[in-house]
């Protein structure tokens, strides 16, 4: 279930005054089961990039292989691809339209041609996965709170049982609690449902804790593509493109500068705390 991009270029509104080269020679490989974070400043091309993954927009040049098959091939079934690669857009709650939550979540499976019973089974399963309480199932989706709407909308994609889940800033506009809950749930899905997860964000803090690999986009090109620790080591370059490493990275670097023997590659608060404790103990033992 790997996704492979080869020299993808994409130009918006080609041949008009508003022509914009949104993706420049992007080559990537995302193997099955990986949890990947795509990060970049506004306008860096991350949203354009992910819309290529399920064939919603076609690259101006380049090739995209899903399971080794070129999706731009003549007889390639794009509908089938969209069943396999689920895409959750930014502010997905804006796509809700049905009379109640359960039916809205059924929309995806129904389009897959499943029986009504199977649709409902999958919808209930998906709603449970995102942690929406059963009492809301027959509510109008427009009566839910922001966080609940977001969950319902994500469930709408999960109900299609995709093999790859792509989420565009799933935490935008949520409060810290809602954000952590959604991210924890996504991490849980990644583990339990054996899904490839691609998470788009502009906050390092958000994704550092969860992902196996970070792809940093800048002005339409891939800037870094590595494990979080190695990406954050470039924290000065990240700053120059309007991004930042997690706060712990800065603290650890400053502690090191002040002469404390701490690991500078800590990416989460827990790791950093551990490192500091160890350093303190060592210092005490030396005295």
């Amino acid at each position: 279930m790997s996704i492979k991009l080869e020299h993808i270029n994409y130009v918006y509104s080609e041949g008009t005054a508003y022509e914009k080269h949104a993706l420049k020679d992007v080559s990537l490989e995302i193997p099955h089961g990986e949890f990947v974070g795509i990060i970049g400043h506004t306008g860096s091309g991350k949203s354009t990039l992910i819309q290529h993954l399920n064939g919603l927009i076609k690259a101006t040049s380049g090739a995209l292989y899903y399971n080794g098959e070129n999706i731009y091939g003549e007889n390639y079934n794009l509908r089938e691809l969209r069943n396999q690669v689920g895409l959750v857009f930014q502010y997905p709650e804006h796509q809700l339209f049905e009379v109640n939550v359960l039916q809205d979540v059924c929309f995806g499976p129904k389009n897959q041609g499943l029986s009504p019973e199977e649709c409902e089974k999958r919808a209930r399963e998906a709603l449970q996965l995102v942690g929406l309480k059963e009492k809301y199932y027959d509510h109008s989706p427009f009566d839910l709170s922001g966080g609940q709407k977001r969950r319902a909308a994500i469930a709408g994609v999960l109900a299609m049982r995709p093999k790859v889940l792509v989420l565009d800033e799933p935490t935008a506009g949520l409060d810290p609690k809602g954000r952590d809950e959604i991210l924890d749930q996504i991490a849980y899905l990644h583990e339990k449902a054996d899904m490839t997860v691609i998470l788009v964000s502009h906050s390092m803090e958000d994704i550092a804790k969860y992902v196996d690999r970070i792809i940093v986009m800048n002005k339409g090109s891939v800037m870094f593509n590595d494990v979080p620790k190695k990406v954050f080591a470039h924290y000065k370059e990240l700053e120059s493109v309007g991004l930042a490493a997690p706060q712990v990275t800065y603290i650890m670097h400053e502690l090191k500068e002040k002469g404390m023997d701490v690991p500078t590659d800590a990416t989460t608060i827990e790791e950093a705390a551990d490192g500091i404790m160890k350093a303190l103990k060592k210092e005490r033992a030396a005295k």
Partner: protein
Amino acid sequence: MIRDITIGQYYPADSRIHKLDPRVKIVCTLLYLISLFTFKSILGYVLATVFLFGCIKLSKVPFKFIVRGLKPIVILLLITVGFNLFLTPGGETLVHVGFIKITEYGLSTAVYMAIRLIYLIMGSSLMTLTTTPNSLTDGLEKLLHPLNKLHVPVHEISMMMSIALRFIPILLEETDKIMKAQIARGADMESGNLIQKAKAMIPILVPLFVSAFRRANDLAMAMEARCYRGGDGRTKMKPLIYKSTDHVAYLITILYVVAAFVVGRYVPFKLWIF
């Protein structure tokens, strides 16, 4: 997908024409359009060509963008030319094959009519290409200001127009996004009969309406919060004031119109009888 549709075809560039006061552009375009219909001799057309192409050159808008505006009227143009060409009697008969008969008069009327229509569209395209929809409504508001005395709510009308114009790209983008989101969920909008196709629009229309109402509500709230209370006593942040270049533009246009009128009507230089 939907991004390719452009309404309000502004072409951003830094040129003298772009910088003109919108009122100048509206009035001058009108004068130019009227001038096109006063000619009787070919010299008038020569003057109009010089004036139009001079303006295009000054505007720095690539020629192909101006020609693009002609696409929607191609059919109309063909019909007009056809009718004039085949159905105008008078003068010497040039071609006579079966029931098709082309006369000298017919040919000249057809050619002149085509040029008039093409110049008409090119002239007005030049105006919309060099003026943002918002400054156009601003200019209109100022031009129509005297109507206030007749109790025509000029300010309110122009405010509604600019809000409507502002919302077109926003709603287009929103439609594009919702469409993509539903396609990603397997929605099929192409196949099926008419009823199925209409049904397939529901997942797009419902969220679109919800979002349009939400945006309208937000906008009303934001205007209220800034104490908007209609046009009475309202001042502008960037009031339209004529600069010297605007006066020059008026002068050039008036000179052109007078010259075109005199030359096109009274100088007896006729290539064809017209």
